[in-house]
């Protein structure tokens, strides 16, 4: 289906610690559709981050199938998975994930350079920052930015190459509610104006309140998957 960006079918993921096997995912099924603003919620250890890592091609499933943009990730080499992450996916992590020795602008530019963007990358990076109202922060290094500003720059970096899918692992975990709200508004703007799809793992009720779809995990399985109207959106939320 063209609108389906991610298809996870009967996905199992085991971790081995010495003689102990931890079943992080136990036959999980999930599809992510174009335009989703999807929150994955659940208690600690329910498999949220593991699922995000599998979708993000950062890890491979023990069994089952994870297809992203129609590609079965288990069939991709390490290099091709890295290429997929670089060119088609955007990542936002919890915190402290900007290169500390680069300015905000250089952090965004660096990812564009990794993607092979030529000399125009500086203008493009600047344009992304301007688009997200971060233009005045461009020449600051991460240690000169607040936590909220750092996360917004991280989002700018994640979306600089206009990925179709952005994965965010607890993006508001270290932010106060004001900064979290600003960040979520920014992400929703990107979804609405730039046709991006967002998948979050979160514990934060505020993130859930912004989500258009909430998937709840427990013990490595999906226990609920509900469409909802997010706050400040029209009542007619997109239903896939």
């Amino acid at each position, binding site marked *: 289906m063209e609108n389906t960006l991610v298809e996870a079918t009967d996905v199992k993921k085991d971790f081995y610690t010495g003689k102990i096997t931890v079943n992080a995912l136990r036959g999980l099924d999930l599809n992510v559709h174009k335009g989703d603003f999807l929150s994955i919620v659940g208690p600690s250890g329910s498999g949220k981050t593991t699922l995000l890592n599998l979708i993000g091609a950062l890890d491979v499933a023990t069994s089952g199938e994870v297809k992203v943009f129609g590609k079965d990730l288990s069939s991709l080499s390490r290099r091709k998975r890295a290429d*997929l*992450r670089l060119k088609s996916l955007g990542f936002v992590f919890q915190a402290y994930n900007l290169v500390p020795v680069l300015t905000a602008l250089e952090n965004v530019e660096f990812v564009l350079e990794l993607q092979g963007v030529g000399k125009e990358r500086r203008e493009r990076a600047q344009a992304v920052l301007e688009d997200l109202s971060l233009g005045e922060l461009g020449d600051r290094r991460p240690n000169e930015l607040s936590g909220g500003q750092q996360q917004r720059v991280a989002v700018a970096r994640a979306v600089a190459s206009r990925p179709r899918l952005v994965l965010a692992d607890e993006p508001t975990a270290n932010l106060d509610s004001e900064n979290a709200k600003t960040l979520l508004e920014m992400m929703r703007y990107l979804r609405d104006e730039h046709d991006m799809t967002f998948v979050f793992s979160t514990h934060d009720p505020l993130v859930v309140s912004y989500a258009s779809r909430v998937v709840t995990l427990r013990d490595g399985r999906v226990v609920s998957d509900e469409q909802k109207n997010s706050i400040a959106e029209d009542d007619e939320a997109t239903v896939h």
Partner: protein
Amino acid sequence: MATSSTLRIAWRNLGRNRRRTFLALGAIAVGQLAFLATAALLHGYAEKYFDSATGPLVGHIQVHAPEWRDDRSIDLTIQDIHHTADEIRKDPNVAHVSPRIFAPVLAALTEDGFMGMVVGINPALESHKSGLLGDETLSGKIGDRCILVGRVFAQKYDMEPGMQLAVIGQDVDGSIANDLFTITDILSSPVAVVNNLGIVMSLHDAQELLLMSDQAHEIVIHVDDGDLLDETVLRLSSSPLLAGMEVLPWQKIVPHIVSMIKFMDIYLFIILFIVFLAAAAGIANTMLMSTFERTHEFGMLLSLGCGPGRLSRMIAVEAVILGLLGVAIGTVLGLGFFLLTSETGINYAALGGDKSTYEMAYKGLQISSFVFPKLYVRDVVFAVCAVLLTSFISVIWPTLHIARLAPMEAMRS
């Protein structure tokens, strides 16, 4: 190829832990200084030994009758010495030709005799920097039974200018040779045998004393271009006038000096190896600590799709910048040491608390306590290449660490 951002990140990363970076820089710089200073001193020594070896006593080339060097027998002479010397002088690479006579004799001022060595020379041919008389003007005359005596020899037997010295020896026929000579000056020579035993007289007087008409024991030759020594030896050897004579380059006459100079090269290599082993350890330690500290950051970059190769390049560029900066500082310090000492020299006697200089005699060669450091561009180039190589070697471990990193595990660290 390092991109501008790789260079930028590498450069700025060096500033993240300045104390550690300065310590690593200091270690490399001191290593480089130690290497350059050692190289300069060893080159200075090598040159001193070379100058001594090819100086007044040995020259660049020597001609003798076969077996004279082993036997020192008075009758093993070169005939037709004037003509032979003139012919040798025609060689395009020959600068100075000095025929000499050496004969052990008994000398006496009064009734008591003592051992001496007649050194017969042509004063005009020996009055240059590499000649037995050097380039200083002597007040005393040589010739017509006027002689010079060596400084140590004179001190030992209380000889002074104006005194008469009786010389008794054996001539080439095996008969007794004796004559009376007037001391006109005391000679300070860089040649130990002349200083300690030398009764320096004109070649003509020595020939008359020893019945060596137009003969000498050796011809010492100095050349213009030392690099053409082998060709010159070959040319002279093939000359009909020198047929049956021994024509030898200095390396065959004083092989121990050649060994010493070679040993200095080996010693220098050992020093270089030790210095750069220490530098490699310093750089590797810095890079490894820096890599482990940044495991989370590397995990994040890997997650974004940055390849391990790119991260390894970043580390390698950091190490190279660190190495080159260290070697640049060390080179400046090394050149400073060289500039401060190359003109004035270093007096080892003064370093030992003695204000005077000393002359060390080694295998008949006089070597002073002064050393004048010499440094060559090749030393600096060699050191820079060694540091570059060291930098690359020192990032092998950090690079292997990066290559094994799994993005998420690294981010969790």
